[in-house]
C-alpha cells in the first residue's frame, strides 16, 4: 500500500445531472442535480424515503438511473455494476455489512479481487501483508487471520472501510455508519474519517443523527421526497434548521413535555429481583409503575437486550422473584409473557420484529391471533383492525394489502409497535424503538410512548441514544458489563452522567 504515502490520492468530484429513478413506474428521484466537491466530508440528510439511499446506489453502480446521469471528475459515467464503480474508486458501505462471516479479515478484504501468484494460485502472503497495512491505516488492532465472526460490530465496520481502502477508494459512501456503534466507537470512526479526508478521500455520510452530522461534516446536502433541497456549509446551519429542511416544515419540539412520575407508593406493574442471564446479566432488579417510563442505558454489549430476552424466556435465565401486576409468576416463553400482559419489541426489526414477507394485516394480528379465531379466522375483522392501526399509529402506506417490506423504515417501526401493542399489554418493553427512523417518525413514536404511559401502562425503553432517554424517561437505569451501575432521575439525567456511569468512570 505504498501508493498512499508516495502518491497522495485525489478525492473524486461528482456531479449529478437531473438524475431520475423509477421503480415499476413509481418515480422515487425527480431530477436530482448537485455537486460533491473533492476531498470533503458531506452529510447527506433526508427522511426515510427521501431518496438518499437510491441516489447513492446509483452513484455506486448498484442501480442504473432511469434518466439523467452522473459525472465523475467532469466525465459522464454510467457504471455497469458496483465492481465498475469500485474500479473508478467509488465504494458504498452498506448499513448491513457485506462480509462473509466464516472467512478471515484478509480473505474478506480481498474477496473478489484476490491476489495471485504467477502460477495462478492465491498469494496468501501478499494478501495478508496488504490487509495488515490497511488495517493499520484504519487503526484496527486485529490479526488479518481473525475470522470475521469473532469481531464486534464496530470492528466489522472498520474491516469494511479497510476493504474499501484496499480497493483504492477515492469516494467513500457510508450509510448510517454509527447506527449500531457506542459513543466511544463513534468517536473513533470520526477520527478515522478525518484522517481519510486529510489523505484526500471524499466521504459521503448518510445519517439521521444531526448532532453527529454537525460535528463531523464540512457541508450538508438535504433531500426531500426524491428532490434536492439544499446544499450548505455545515457551520452555517443549526440542527433545528437541518431538521426543518428535511421535514419541509417547522418541526415542533421532538419530545412531549414530561408528566410527573407516579407516586412511590403506587404498587409496581412489574417487579424483578435477582435476575441472572448467564454470560450477560447478573443480579438485576427493578420495578416499573403504571404511567412510568423507565429507561435502560449502557454501551453495546452491556447486556440490556439479553437481559430482557432472558426475562421473556428466550434465553436461559434464573430469577429470584418476578411479579407482574402484583402476582408472583414465572415466564417461560414470550407466549407466557404476552398472556400475562408483558410484550417486547425487539431491536432487530427485520430479524426478530416483523415478517417482512408477510402482509401488514398478518403482522399486526400475529401476537393476538386467538382473538380472531372463533375458530375460523375472520380476515374482514383483521382488516378493520389494520385500518384502525394505520390511522392510530400514522402508518403511511398507499395500499394496506401490501407486504411489510414495502414500507419505509419508520413506517415498519410503527407497524412493529402496533403489533406488540395489539395483545393489549400492561407492561411494554421497547428495545431501540427509534433505530433507523427519521425525525418525523421519531417524534410520532415519542408522543405515542407518552400516550401509552398516560393510559396507565408501564413502559421500559432500551436505547443507545442518550438524548432520547433523557428527553423521555422518568428514571434511567445504567448498565455496565451485565450489572446495574446506577439509577438516575430528575436533574441527574444528563449525557455526561449517563456516559460516565456507562463507561465506569464514575462510581
Amino acid at each position, binding site marked *: 500500500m505504498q501508493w498512499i504515502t508516495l502518491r497522495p490520492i485525489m478525492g473524486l468530484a461528482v456531479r449529478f445531472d437531473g438524475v431520475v429513478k423509477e421503480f*415499476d*413506474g*413509481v*418515480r422515487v428521484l425527480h431530477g436530482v442535480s448537485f455537486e460533491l466537491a473533492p476531498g470533503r466530508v458531506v452529510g447527506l440528510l433526508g427522511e426515510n424515503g427521501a431518496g438518499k439511499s437510491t441516489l447513492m446506489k446509483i452513484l455506486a453502480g448498484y442501480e442504473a438511473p432511469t434518466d439523467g446521469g452522473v459525472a465523475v471528475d467532469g466525465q459522464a459515467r454510467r457504471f455497469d455494476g458496483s465492481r465498475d464503480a469500485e474500479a473508478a474508486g467509488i465504494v458504498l458501505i452498506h448499513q448491513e455489512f457485506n462480509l462473509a462471516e466464516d472467512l478471515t479479515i484478509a480473505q474478506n478484504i480481498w474477496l473478489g479481487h484476490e491476489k495471485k501468484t504467477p502460477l495462478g494460485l492465491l498469494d496468501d502472503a501478499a494478501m495478508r501483508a496488504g490487509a495488515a497495512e490497511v488495517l493499520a491505516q484504519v487503526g484496527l488492532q486485529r490479526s488479518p487471520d481473525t475470522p470475521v465472526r469473532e469481531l464486534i460490530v464496530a470492528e466489522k465496520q472498520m474491516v469494511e472501510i479497510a476493504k474499501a481502502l484496499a480497493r483504492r477508494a477515492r469516494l467513500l459512501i457510508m450509510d448510517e455508519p454509527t447506527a449500531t456503534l457506542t459513543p466511544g466507537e463513534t468517536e473513533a470512526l470520526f477520527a478515522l474519517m478525518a484522517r481519510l479526508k486529510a489523505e484526500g478521500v471524499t466521504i459521503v455520510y448518510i445519517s439521521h443523527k444531526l448532532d453527529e452530522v454537525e460535528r463531523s461534516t464540512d457541508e450538508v446536502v438535504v433531500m426531500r*421526497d426524491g428532490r434536492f433541497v439544499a446544499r450548505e456549509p455545515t457551520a452555517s446551519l443549526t440542527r433545528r434548521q437541518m431538521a426543518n429542511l428535511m421535514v419541509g416544515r417547522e418541526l415542533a419540539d421532538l419530545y412531549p413535555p414530561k408528566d410527573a412520575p407516579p407516586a412511590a407508593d403506587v404498587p409496581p406493574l412489574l417487579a424483578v429481583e435477582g435476575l441472572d442471564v448467564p454470560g450477560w446479566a447478573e443480579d438485576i432488579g427493578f420495578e416499573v409503575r403504571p404511567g412510568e417510563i423507565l429507561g435502560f442505558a449502557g454501551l453495546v454489549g452491556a447486556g440490556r437486550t439479553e437481559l430482557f430476552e432472558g426475562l421473556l424466556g*428466550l434465553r436461559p435465565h434464573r430469577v429470584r422473584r418476578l411479579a407482574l401486576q402484583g402476582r408472583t409468576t414465572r415466564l417461560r*416463553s*414470550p*407466549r407466557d*409473557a*404476552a398472556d400475562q400482559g408483558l*410484550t*417486547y419489541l*425487539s431491536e432487530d426489526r427485520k*430479524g*426478530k*420484529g*416483523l*415478517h*417482512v*414477507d*408477510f402482509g401488514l394485516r*398478518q403482522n399486526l394480528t*400475529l*401476537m393476538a*391471533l*386467538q382473538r*380472531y*379465531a372463533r*375458530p*375460523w*379466522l375472520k380476515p374482514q375483522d383483521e382488516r378493520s383492525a389494520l385500518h384502525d392501526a394505520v390511522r392510530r399509529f400514522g402508518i*403511511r402506506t*398507499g*395500499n394496506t*394489502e*401490501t407486504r411489510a417490506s*414495502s414500507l419505509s423504515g419508520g413506517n415498519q417501526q410503527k407497524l412493529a409497535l402496533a*403489533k406488540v401493542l395489539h*395483545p393489549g399489554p400492561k407492561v411494554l418493553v421497547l428495545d431501540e424503538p427509534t433505530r433507523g427512523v427519521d425525525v418525523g417518525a421519531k417524534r410520532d413514536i415519542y408522543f405515542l410512548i407518552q400516550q401509552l404511559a398516560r393510559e396507565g401502562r408501564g413502559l421500559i425503553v432500551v436505547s443507545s441514544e442518550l438524548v432520547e432517554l433523557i428527553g423521555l424517561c422518568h428514571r434511567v437505569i445504567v448498565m455496565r458489563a451485565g450489572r446495574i451501575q446506577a439509577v438516575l432521575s430528575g436533574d441527574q439525567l444528563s449525557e455526561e452522567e449517563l456516559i460516565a456511569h456507562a463507561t465506569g468512570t464514575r462510581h
Partner: protein
Amino acid sequence: MRPERATETGARATGRALWGRLHGLGPIAGLVLLCLAGTLLNPDFATLDNAMNVLTRTAFIGIIAVGMCFVIISGGIDLSVGSMAALIAGAVILLMNALGAAGWSSTPVVALGMVFAVLLGALFGIAHGLLITRGRIEPFIVTLGTLGIFRAYLTYFSNGGAITLENALADAYGPVFYGHLLGVPVPVWVFAAVALAGALILNRTAYGRYVQAIGSNEQVARYAAVDVDRIKVLTYMLLGICVGIATLLYVPRLGSASPTTGLLWELEAIAAVIVGGTALKGGAGSITGTVVGAVLLSVISNILNLTSIISVYLNAAVQGFVIIVVAFMQRRRR
C-alpha cells in the same frame, strides 16, 4: 406522500396482486394444457372412467402431499413418508391378521386397523417433531434417519418378503379402496376431504397462520409469542396422520406390504408440493396448488401410458423436466 403518488402505488400494487394471482394459476394452466394435449392424442383420455382412474391413483400421493405442504411451508421437510407408509401398512396388516386369528369378526377388525394406521402415523409424526424441536436436529437429518429405520423394520417383519392380509379380511376391507359413492371412488372422496380440510386449516385457522409465520421467519415468530416448538410438532403429526390415511386406503388395494411399498413416495409428494408453487424454503404455499401439482404429475404418466409418443420408461424423466420447468418459471418470484 402526495395523493397522486399514493393512487399510483395503489394501482401498481393491485396490478401486482393480479399478476400474483395469475402466477398462482400457472399450475392449473399447465394442467389444462396437458389435458388438452391428452385429449388430442388419445380420445380415451377425456373419459370419466379415465379421469376417475387418474384421481384414484393420485389419492395416495395427493393426501400425503397435503400434509407435506404444511411441513414445507413451516420450513421443514420429511423424507421418510414412503418408508413410514410401508411400515404402517405392514403393522396394520399384522395387527388385523392377529385380531382375525383371535376370532374377531371382520368389520371391527378393519375399523380398528384403520384407526391404528392413523394413530401410528400421528405417533411417528410426533416423534419426528420432538426430535426436531427438543432434540434440535435438522428435519432433513431426522427423517433421513427414520427413512432407513422404518423401511428396515418393515423388511425385518416381512422377512424380506411380503406381509399379506388374510383373505376374509381383505374381502371386508376391499370396498375402502374399490368402493364407489355417487359414482366416485372412495379414495377420491377421501382425497377431496383431506384437501378441503387442509386448505381450511392453512388459511383460516390461527394454527395455519403460525405455520406460515414460522416458515417465513422462525425468529420473528418466536418473538411474537408463537409457540414454535408446539406448532412444529403438530405439523409433523399432521403429516403423519395424512400418511396414515393414505396407507389405510392403500392396504386394501393390494392387501399386502413389502419392502417396495411406498418406494419414492416422499419424492413424489415433495415434487407435487413444489410443482404446486410452494417454495422449498417455506413461508408461503397453497393447498390448491399442491393438489393440482399432484394431479398434474399423475396425468403425465397417464398420458404416456395411453399414447406411444414417448416411452413409458421415460415417465420419471418427463416428470423431472416438468419440475425443472415449473421451478424455472417461478424463480423470479423469490
